[in-house]
């Protein structure tokens, strides 16, 4: 037994540093369990959420712009095509010979209407 004065703090402090008591053998398993749970629940830092949100907004933005441009181009194409075919239709002078159509002109008219309906999506 180490006898020492209560005021001799250095000795008591040293004894405390050397003092050892064993925890139960299960303690390590419990620590491992806690560490394992921590690995399973992978906490995503806030900055990662920000990156994901930014990427999502960027993708949606690009898609929206692309889609709107496409609609404008499609509309312009359709207008141009309609005008072109209208001119073609106008070439057919149906009023000059009412009720009588040349077979070739009639076929041409059919193709023109078909293309027109396809382009305008009707």
């Amino acid at each position, binding site marked *: *037994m*180490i*006898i*020492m*004065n*209560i*005021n001799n*703090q250095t*000795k*008591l*402090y040293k*004894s*405390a*540093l050397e*003092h*050892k*008591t*064993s*925890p*139960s053998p299960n*303690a*390590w398993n*419990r*620590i*491992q369990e*806690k*560490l394992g749970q*921590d690995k399973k629940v992978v906490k995503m830092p806030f900055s990662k959420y920000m990156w994901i949100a930014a990427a999502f907004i960027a993708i949606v933005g690009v898609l929206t712009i692309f889609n709107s441009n496409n609609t404008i181009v499609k509309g312009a194409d359709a207008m141009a095509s309609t005008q072109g075919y209208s001119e073609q239709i106008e070439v057919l002078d149906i009023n000059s010979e009412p009720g009588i159509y040349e077979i070739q002109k009639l076929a041409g008219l059919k193709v023109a209407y078909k293309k027109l309906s396809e382009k305008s999506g009707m």
Partner: protein
Amino acid sequence: MVANLEHIITQCKSQDPDAQKVLYDLYKDTLYAVCIRYIKSAHDAEDVFIDAFYKIFTKIDHFKGEGSFEGWMRRIMVNESLMFLRKKTNLHLTVELPDKEIADVQEEEDDMSFDDIMKVLDELPVGYRTIFNLYIFEDMKHREIAEMLGISINTSKSQLILAKKRLYEILKKKENLTFKIK
């Protein structure tokens, strides 16, 4: 040994399970002894010890190599124990004492061994026990204890004196009992 410990710490910073086990085996007995000095119940002390060791492994990056690693781990054990005591007992209230009482208390000068103290430490009230532990076994100053516990320096001083007095009384009582039995 030092180089080896540095290697273990580096490995633990990479969350290597083998290194964690080695570190645990190296310090488990010393660090559990810290918790058991503050917390009466072995069951609670082990819970605190587990939480503190978990904190050591997860916060090991915070250790920058300044000072002793063992000291850093001990401080985590002490902080976790104090946190537990604050939650379970009203530690702040248990250590409060009017300053005027200090003058009435005479410090005991008798010899007490570490083993004797350990035998009766459990019998001290939580406030006495905590301050006795911090001052004697952790070698902290009254100013540090006061800041840590949110009490005045005089309260810390008076609690230490009262703790020593109570320890001495308990030991004397036990010695008398042993003498009578003989």
